[in-house]
């Protein structure tokens, strides 16, 4: 999920990003690790915390007269859903466009399709569309309209294929009908074709990957009206660095099916205005006008909420959450769907020695990090994925904080006076890592307590990934926010093959992940992912530190939408209350 523009250092780079859950896991996320927040009940459900604020009375007059203003960390970049991959653009497009399937917490639920089924090999996906759904331009939704969208994407030309515009399409489908060599996409597209029959539509793929059916809930793959597709058919993006076509910046060209319609987008005052779509097929939106306004500085966002200039904002700083709660504001807790880890690059001695890696893992007090730095609702991680994903294993190797044991193990491994370089990113904050500097300070202070001398190496974010990926940093902090409920989205991207990023060669881990990723049968796939997790934690390539939800805040007199671990809030549920 691409970062949205982050004007100032403390602004969070991106929302958690588009994601939906492959709901194969029966219960909505099994009970996570017992750690979690000290003062919450033992059975706190980290994946999808229940809503406890009931149904306050709505202030109808105000809902129609006053716009609901929501502060965002960055501007959206494009109104064409396929041409974007940053959280802020998804937030706006989610209110205006719909996808075939939707996500409720981390479960896949019907969207535009009432129901769906797959064939044995997972290469044929048939969707049964809802009755009587119309686009904002009046056209009716049917199988043909869905196929027109899929065909349009598959046959994208030139700049449309460049990853900085259509990252998600090429990640999910591999490539396009004819890959343009200049855009550097070599993989062959797994999209075979689309067959429409009235309200039924079947998508056929060349091979199954565990991205499906989750991929069908991605905001990028939202369905727009056939007339819109024809209207923009000749728009062109000649090269990767040419500007986005004009239609993506002006309101009114593309018609979606969502609860809101786009009213205006004023770039200079960084303001997007949406109005209620009265012909919506589902529950009509409660507030007539919703405005998204950019405030890049997180402190400024909180002050704007407290002063009443805005009625809600996302990515609240952990330190602000508590003072807002004390002042009567609402900070509903989202489910966790990301992971922060400390990587051990085994190409640097003595990290190739398992005992040393274990010792370091025992030395770090992850409890303190979760309790004092991360937002409420965070938990200490035990493995390289959040609990709500299929294949989350209960019996992986765990390393609870024990400073003495760490010191002892370091001595046994002959690494008493170990000196090691520890990299961390500056000028950025990520949902899984709200305050990199503070987390770094705590970990290095713990390591120093265990006798390890830490040499700090701060690196600017734009250079951080290439440096860490090239194996230059022995220890480094990094993490990931799930795009959609697909274990490969976590384990696959890190441990599918040997890499300089981790510097270890463990064929058992690579095979476990490969087999799990291609197993179409849901039940067997869950066990395969469990074994993969256990194999990874046995190898201990790094120490999973925490999973924590980004905080979202609302004014006291507002009924918040259902918050989602995939930051997929639907603002049509919001309304002004008469205020208790």
């Amino acid at each position, binding site marked *: *999920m*691409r970062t949205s*523009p*982050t*004007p*100032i*250092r403390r602004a969070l780079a*991106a929302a958690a990003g588009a994601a939906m859950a492959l709901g194969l896991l029966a219960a909505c996320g099994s009970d996570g690790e017992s750690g979690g927040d000290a003062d919450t009940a033992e059975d706190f459900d980290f994946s999808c915390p229940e809503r406890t604020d009931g149904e306050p009375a709505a202030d109808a007059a105000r809902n129609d007269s006053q*716009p609901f*203003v929501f502060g965002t960390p960055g*501007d959206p*970049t*494009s109104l064409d859903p396929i*041409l974007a991959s940053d959280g802020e653009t998804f937030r706006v497009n989610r209110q205006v466009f719909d996808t075939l399937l939707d996500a409720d917490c981390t479960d896949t639920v019907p969207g535009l399709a009432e129901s769906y089924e797959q064939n044995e090999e997972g290469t044929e996906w048939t969707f049964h569309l809802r009755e009587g759904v119309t686009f904002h331009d009046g056209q009716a939704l049917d199988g043909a309209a869905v196929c027109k969208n899929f065909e349009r994407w598959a046959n994208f030309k030139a700049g449309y294929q*460049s*990853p*900085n515009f259509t*990252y998600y399409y090429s*990640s999910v489908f591999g490539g396009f009908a004819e890959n343009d060599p200049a*855009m*550097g*996409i070599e993989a062959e597209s797994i999209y075979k074709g689309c067959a429409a029959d009235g309200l039924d539509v079947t998508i056929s793929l060349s091979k199954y990957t565990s991205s499906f059916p989750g991929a069908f809930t991605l905001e990028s793959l939202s369905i727009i009206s056939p007339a819109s597709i024809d209207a923009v058919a000749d728009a062109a993006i000649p*090269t*990767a*660095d040419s*500007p*986005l076509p004009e239609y*993506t*910046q002006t309101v009114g060209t593309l018609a979606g099916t969502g609860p809101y319609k786009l009213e205006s987008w004023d*770039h*200079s*005052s*960084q*303001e997007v*205005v949406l109005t209620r779509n009265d012909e919506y097929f589902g529950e009509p939106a409660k507030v007539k*006008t919703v*405005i998204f*306004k*950019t*405030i*890049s*500085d997180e*402190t*400024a966002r909180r*002050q*704007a909420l407290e*002063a009443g*200039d805005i009625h809600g904002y996302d990515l609240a700083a952990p330190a602000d959450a508590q003072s807002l709660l004390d002042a009567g504001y609402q900070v509903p807790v989202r489910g966790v769907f990301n992971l922060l880890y400390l990587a051990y690059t085994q190409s640097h001695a003595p990290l190739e020695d398992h005992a040393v890696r274990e010792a370091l893992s025992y030395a770090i007090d992850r409890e303190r990090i979760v309790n004092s730095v991360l937002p409420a609702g965070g938990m200490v991680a035990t493995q390289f994925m959040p609990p709500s994903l299929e294949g989350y294993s209960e019996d992986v190797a765990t390393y609870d904080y024990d400073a003495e044991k760490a010191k002892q193990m370091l001595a046994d491994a002959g690494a008493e006076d170990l000196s090691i370089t520890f990299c961390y990113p500056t*000028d950025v904050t990520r949902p899984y890592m709200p305050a990199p500097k503070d987390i770094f300070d705590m970990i290095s202070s713990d390591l120093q307590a265990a006798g390890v001398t830490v040499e700090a190496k701060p690196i600017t*974010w*734009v250079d*951080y*990934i*290439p*440096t860490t990926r090239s194996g230059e940093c022995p220890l480094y902090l*990094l*993490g*990931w926010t799930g795009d959609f409920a697909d274990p490969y*989205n976590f384990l696959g*991207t890190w441990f599918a093959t040997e890499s300089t990023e981790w510097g270890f060669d463990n064929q058992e881990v690579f095979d476990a992940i490969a087999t799990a990723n291609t197993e179409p049968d849901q039940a067997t796939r869950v066990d395969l992912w469990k074994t993969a997790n256990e194999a990874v934690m046995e190898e201990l390539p790094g120490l999973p530190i925490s999973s924590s939800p980004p905080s979202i805040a609302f004014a006291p007199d507002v009924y918040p939408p259902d918050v989602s671990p995939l930051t997929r809030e639907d603002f049509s549920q919001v309304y002004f209350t008469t205020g208790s």
Partner: protein
Amino acid sequence: MLRYTVKRLLQLSVALLGLSLLLFAWFKALPGGPENRLLPENATDQQREALRAALGLDEPVWTQYGEFLARIVRLDFGSSLSSGRPIATELAERLPATVELSLAAMLIAVGLGIPLGYLAAKRRGTWVDFSTVSGSLLGTCIPIFFLAAMLKVVFAQELGWLPTTFRLTAGADFTEVTGLRVFDGLITGELDIAWDAVRHLILPAIALSSIPLAVIVRITRASVLDVVGEDYVRTADAKGLKPATVRGRHVMRNAMLPIATIIGLLLGSLFAGAVLTESVFAFGGIGSFVYQATTERDYPALMGFILVIAVFYVVINLIVDLSYGLLDPRVRVRK
């Protein structure tokens, strides 16, 4: 007068061209490319390479600079890599916010600075002089982001007299002419918008004006002290003119010469402060734009910005030179 200014302009534009080449090579040499911001952490190396190649970042610096120059000649600034939007439009949208903020800050600095400077000069050596000068110096000593935040916490949050963020209340519909909200409001007759814009401008302008205020107080004081000692002021007194005439036509008109030049130069220095003030008040000006462009290695945006600032700087220098001629007849006639 004209010949001298044209010569200086030519020299400056050659230097600016040299500068843009230097900066282009310098930014290209910095580690990390824009593709690392455009793609998420988990994008594969292969995707990163593909994007680098597609963006033409792997070509030698000279060819890239050549392309960039060819574009500039056609006034095509290219598109920003992070937002994918043409830079010319992006700059055009962001510039008015910073210009309006800087002008408001300069208005406060001049409006307060000159009278204070005059007072300090007239009551030289007394505690009034000391407290005025030290008070204005204190303004420069407070880090501007801290001053902006404190002003906001006290006046906007605790007392609620003024709004905390944005240039206008969210959702206010206004007709945009130049992008300067107050000015647009006035000329289109939407006085409520103009007033709303003014209320949003007060706190950030005060924070930003703390830097130029001290300089203007000091320059005015020194300049008035200088002029008061001149013989023609004594002649004016000898004529028995009213004190107001002596102060206005004789003292201040001569004292304004150095002050006018300083005001011109100070406009340039407001930019650094604008970056910080804009972020605290979410003004979305050019300051935050350049910060983001640099952190994301958005080369086209950076180059576009540098050219705008360079032209801005050249224009200010020109205005300062010309205004000198206007204010001081000796310069105008002799050159």
